[in-house]
């Protein structure tokens, strides 16, 4: 791209080459960046529509984790006496549920996004990656709103975050990347096999219990914890909770394994998605 000279605003018109799919890696991040405004509009649209359709609107972003927190706290915490790392029960559950809800909602949204947007996919060109990406990003607003309850909870129960808080953005980023990776897989699969979206609720439910949301990962014996880390949400939730509250496992083998899995899922998701992308308009 040569820079335009200072006098004229005329730039070279973009040249587009259309060719059959070739090679095994055709992800164009540059193009995705060029379409960032469109991604913004998709996120904006999803959020607006979601809030217009519920009467309680934004309150849902707090109610969903809060209600789950109460149920979990009652049944898992109080009645079943699951260990909570010495944290006050409500804080323990809320700090786990917040990233979890973001993750599971992102999965649900991402799965059906390609199919739901088939009317524009078949009419206009834009990098299809924009759709699952915006599905994953639109959940962040709900997450941010959910955080609003986290602060008073921690203040009331006098849980003071320490240095680990610096790593909170890292774990948040990991959550987003994991949601993106899994979202890419599911949205691509659902575009081709329409029954995938019926599997997702079961998948999410199963995954919830396999992750340290309802319980602390300390119930897993130390020598097996790295294996537990193969569930990427294990490392993410644990790490999130640790960076927020300072309690629980500091980054160790479990979290390292989880991070590796996240990267694998993301890379493979990108690969599978772009393979599907070239044919999606034909089958959707």
């Amino acid at each position: 791209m040569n820079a335009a000279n200072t006098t004229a605003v005329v730039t070279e018109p973009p040249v587009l080459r259309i060719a059959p799919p070739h090679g095994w890696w055709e992800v164009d991040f540059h193009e995705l960046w060029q379409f960032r405004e469109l991604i913004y509009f998709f996120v904006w649209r999803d959020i607006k529509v979601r809030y217009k359709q519920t009467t309680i609107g934004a309150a849902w972003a707090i109610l969903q984790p809060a209600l789950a927190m109460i149920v979990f706290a009652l049944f898992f915490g109080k009645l079943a006496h699951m260990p909570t790392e010495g944290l006050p029960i409500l804080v323990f559950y809320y700090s786990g549920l917040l990233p979890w809800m973001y993750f599971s909602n992102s999965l649900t949204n991402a799965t059906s996004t390609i199919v739901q947007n088939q009317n524009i996919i078949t009419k206009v060109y834009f990098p299809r990656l924009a759709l699952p990406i915006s599905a994953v990003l639109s959940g962040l607003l709900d997450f941010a709103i959910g955080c609003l309850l986290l602060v008073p909870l921690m203040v009331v129960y006098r849980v003071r975050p320490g240095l680990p808080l610096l790593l909170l953005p890292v774990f948040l980023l990991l959550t987003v990347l994991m949601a993106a990776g899994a979202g890419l897989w599911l949205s691509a699969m659902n575009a081709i096999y329409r029954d995938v979206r019926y599997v997702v609720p079961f998948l999410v439910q199963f995954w919830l219990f396999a992750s340290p949301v309802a319980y602390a990962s300390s119930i897993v014996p130390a020598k097996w914890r790295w294996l537990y880390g193969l569930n990427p949400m294990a490392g993410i939730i644990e790490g999130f909770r640790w960076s927020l509250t300072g309690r629980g496992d500091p980054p160790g083998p479990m979290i390292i394994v989880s991070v590796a899995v996240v990267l694998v899922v993301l890379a493979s998701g990108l690969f599978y998605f772009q393979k599907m992308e070239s044919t999606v308009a034909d089958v959707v």
Partner: protein
Amino acid sequence: MTDAVIRVEGIGKRYRVGQRQSYRALRDVLAGAFRRNGKRAPTDFIWAVRDVSFEVKQGEVVGLIGRNGAGKSTLLKLLARITRPTVGHAELHGRIGSLLEVGTGFHPELTGRENIFLSGAILGMSKQEILRKFDEIVAFSEVERFIDTPLKHYSSGMGMRLAFAVAAHLEPEILLVDEVLSVGDAAFQKKCLGKMGEVAKAGRTIIFVSHNVTAVTRLCSRCILLQAGVTLASGATHDVMSTYLRSELATSATREWSLADAPGDSVVRLRAVRVRKLDGTVSETFDIRQPVGIDVVFDVLEGGKELTPNLHVFDQQGVNVFISHDVDPNWRRRPRPEGRYISTAWIPGNFLPEGYFVVGAAITTMAPQNIRLYERDAVAFQVVDSTEGDSARGDYAGHLPGVVRPLLRWETSYEASPIEAERALQ
């Protein structure tokens, strides 16, 4: 560096037959993996577009025509990057705007204002651009009062006007338009056509897919005719149109039906329609000065009903030139006995203009009115003019428009004196 803005070389798109028919279920795929009896049906392929090549220069408006299923929309989708080609490639210089549908991206829950932004962004406008053109778009759409109401409360006409307003303000260098004009009422279509004309004059390159012969003839300097995915003709609109109509009206001057598929009801069946000259020979081409005879052959299976054959004649633009029915006193209002009838109508010479004509045949009962059969596009014929000077065109060699071209009788009276007298008075 030629100034070709679009260059397409050997592009082709192949589909697996049945690819769009049913969605696959993961469940079935997994179950199938365990069934090892090799029940794999051979996959059939169909080439929607095959080996199409052409170039478009800047500012050209190219029409893409062909019957349904010819591959026009697929070709447009390939150029719009909605689907990838199987073979071949294309190069496009400039921003591409694709107008394959009116209202792309509209969401019913959002307001008109919000939808303008959303649709504009999806169609490729930047936020800046939308902001800049916002007022113009709203004015064009004529829905100012409702701009902040959710789209689901709009009437379909309002929605369409808004959608088109957004699309009309797209300013890409290359515009790909697919039959958008086929939706909406007549006023809307006129507005669309007008806007397209403006865009064309502004120097943008347009590829226009349509069945609307009038629109294509009016807007496009060049045409590409596709048939079954391959280029059948390419060149000046007028010529390609003729080729199109000729291949479309594979309807010839004669059409016959066996009793099994003869149109009609239990009372009457249409058996044949023929176009013939005065001397009786069936012909597809007529000299403009000669009369054209159209035979309507029909069998009356149940006697006792009054039946009237009629002919509907359309020109190549789809305009109805005239409808004629048999008012001959011999059979008018007379119940017809069973048997075979051949009713012939004679279109006088020096009446129709040059061109192609499509004839539809119908048989009706007048009282009570009942259309027993109407066979559209039954036969076709063409009329050619002569330059010998004794047709209505006389010595004029240029293009003569007109739905009819009668050779009228002109009377002239002459006086030399009045002018001299008037001059003398002044």
